[in-house]
């Protein structure tokens, strides 16, 4: 087990390093001249004269060979320093750190809602014996993954803020302002959870141990929840990493729709202003979240499901 943990940690670090490299290649290497882009966009540049561009180029190390730039950047990134925002002049790390709590609040509530709604839907759909109800419930998740989130958000604002006046239409003030954004963000995620869970629940209900439990006289509800759901939710756990990444990225759209402060709005503003250091920090952060969640899931997984044997190859596989 210890060897497995170490191996997984090393793998996670490797993926993070590579993700940072991708961000570096895309953002610093792909544009013909990031400095001109920045000088045109940033307010600090004021006077865009050649000397200033040269100074900026020097400041950001663009006058060095690509490899030197890369090692310098990587060296700083490892210490958590992603440079300064071009637009505001503040360090990228603290810009992101300030915005993060709001976004974590949003994504955590959305994840909770998604699990409750999506899970509830899957359980209800597999439990019911009414054909029409099952059909109806099962038709919801495909709908959920097909509607644009920004559209859902706007419809919610229109009806629940402007018409019914139950919840605020924008901002970060208190838990009431969190309801509509979290619901919006939860729709596609909840739909995906429902799809995965319903599928594995149907599979689980056909398994032998369910038959055994039934034969032993366990009630239908008990079989459903205690036996089938427990086994069926394990596969759903493997996609949590993917879902959390999606939720964090989804905050870009949702926070824009609801004019909420947070990482997503910082990201959107940075892309608009071509604030390369900030975008780089965001990409690296997204990868960090994904890798960490997967690491945690992989480490917890064997504890939950005794059937899993940790393969020497590293990743525990269940599906």
């Amino acid at each position, binding site marked *: 087990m210890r060897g497995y943990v170490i191996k997984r940690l090393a793998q996670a670090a490797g993926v993070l390093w590579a993700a940072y490299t991708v961000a570096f290649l895309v953002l610093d290497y792909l544009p013909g001249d990031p400095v001109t882009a920045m*000088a*045109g*966009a*940033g*307010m*600090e*540049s*004021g*006077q*865009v004269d050649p000397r200033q561009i040269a100074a900026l180029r020097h400041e950001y190390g663009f006058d060095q060979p690509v490899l030197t730039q890369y090692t310098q950047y990587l060296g700083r990134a490892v210490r958590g320093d992603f440079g300064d925002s071009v*637009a*505001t*002049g*503040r360090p990228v790390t603290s810009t992101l750190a300030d915005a993060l709590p709001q976004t974590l609040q949003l994504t955590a509530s959305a994840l909770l809602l998604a699990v409750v709604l999506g899970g509830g839907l899957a359980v209800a759909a597999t439990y019911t014996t009414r054909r029409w109800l099952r059909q109806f419930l099962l038709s919801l998740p495909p709908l959920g993954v097909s509607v644009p989130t920004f559209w859902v958000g706007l419809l919610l*604002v*229109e009806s629940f*803020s*402007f018409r019914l*006046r139950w919840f*605020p*239409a*924008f*901002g970060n003030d208190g838990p009431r302002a969190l309801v509509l954004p979290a619901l919006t963000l939860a729709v596609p995620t909840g739909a995906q959870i429902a799809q995965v869970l319903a599928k594995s629940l149907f599979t689980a209900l056909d398994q032998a141990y369910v038959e055994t439990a039934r034969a032993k006289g366990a009630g239908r509800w008990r079989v459903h929840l205690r036996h089938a759901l427990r086994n069926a939710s394990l596969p759903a756990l493997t996609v949590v990493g993917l879902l959390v990444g999606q939720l964090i990225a989804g905050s870009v759209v949702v926070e824009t729709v609801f*004019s909420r*402060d947070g990482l997503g*709005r910082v990201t959107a*503003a940075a892309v*608009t*202003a071509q604030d390369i250091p900030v975008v780089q920090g965001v990409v690296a952060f997204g990868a960090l979240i994904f890798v960490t969640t997967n690491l945690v899931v992989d480490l917890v997984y064997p504890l939950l499901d005794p059937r899993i044997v940790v393969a020497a190859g590293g990743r525990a596989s269940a599906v």
Partner: protein
Amino acid sequence: MRALPPARSPRWTTLAALVTTGALLTACGSGTDDTGSGKPRSGGTLTFAVGSDAGCVDPQQVGSNDTIYSVRQVVDSLTDQDPRTGKIVPWLARSWDISADTTAFTFHLRSGVTFSDGSPLTAQVVKDNFDAVPKLGVLGTLAEGYLSGVRSTTVVDPLTVKVTFRQPNAQFLQATSTHSLGIESSASVKRSPQQKCSDGVVGSGPFVLKQYVQNQSITLARRKGYAWGSSRWAKKGEAYLDRLVFKVVPEAGVRAGSLRSGQVDAIGSVGRADEAALKGGPVTLQRRANPGIVFGLGFNNARPVLKDARVRRAIRSAVDRKQIADTVFPTGTRPATSVLAHTTPDYTDLGTDLAFDPARAKSLLDTAGWKAGGDGVRTKDGKRLSLTIDWVPNAATNQPALELIQQQLKAVGVQVTLKQLQLPQLTPIQQSGQYDAIWGNITRADPDILRSSFSTKLANFYRVPAGGLDTTLAAQAATTDPAERGRLVERAQRSIVRDAYNVPVVELQTQLGLSTKVHSLAFDASSRIQLHDTWIG
């Protein structure tokens, strides 16, 4: 504290007066103004949703109305301007003397004024400010323009300061009433322009900056012990409100909906579309036409295509100003009839020059050699007649207005591409000259704004060729005779409109939406707001 008339809110009095006198500077309110909520009350928070953030909280550098609303409250000015009469009245300066040739201005400061860091206001502080402002350069073009040609600022005694100019400078007194020349503490003045932008400044104003989150919010708190308000204000001493929170909500529709549902107390830039949505709600609309340079296309007159005055004039004639004003802008907005808004002193009606005349536009383009092409876009020597208009999303009215202009110009064979910039990108672009035309306006209650914008001696963002216009603009700034100044300003307007250095389109009419529980939120002379007298109840 001055007693208020018990049954009438001060704003109602102001409004009534404005509606009846509104010859020079007009304003009007619509909707129902609930005035019966009794006496002004101290305390409370005003939440104000604005559409944009200039990315800077230094009043001396900011030129965008949405941000001026908040940063104005942090600083006091030497003087104040009465929005009704245009008269300059005392504020930080008790009184002033102006030399006969308007080259020397002596201000006698009030005593006992302190900045929020505890330091006192002295003549030296004013000198530090006026010495530093010209060094802001492109970052503070407005403030820099007001002080252009300054020879020196001298400390006469601790409370007397004298500003002398190399040439007569008639506009300077009005300039001291603007936010751009708001007085900051010596400590703030010493900081770099970038630091002042991101961290804010220490002022002596009725509110103090508490927090600035770029693109999101600006929070101000009441200044304790404030006792040196403008002589125009009704309340003496501290402001009524405890806190002001300005939130950036880019979508006009969301702002309007949130005002209706009571999530915010006031919103900025209410367009025509929102009027219908706000009607019937517990909301008052408050309007005032901004003086200064009207919304229009500021050409880069050095661009090869736009160097040809015939092309510029053709574009001027191809714009249907009335259609734009009536479709997009708030009720009561006037199509431009000059480069200056009708509320600016010495405005001249040049409506006939700005008439919509597509036939004339077409013939001008024909004579300039731009022949109608197959796809509707004119060409000359294989080049298409196409220009890019840069714009910033600081008002919901910008994009639809520009899309209409795009359609109108297409009808005469000019292809227009719209390019959206972010607010902080604007100045660098103007500076670099990498643009064809920029959509915008500048608010100022003095015609000298023409010199700031079009004189080749100053920033000359529009690359206007040097010539007779310079002389006229310099002369109007120098003259002390009001009638003579009026004639010169008229000549300058004619020259700019005739040569179409700029295509005036529509006047800016600021329209705020206020919850009916907000009282005494009044416009200043530049149609921005002063919130010292404002209360909630």
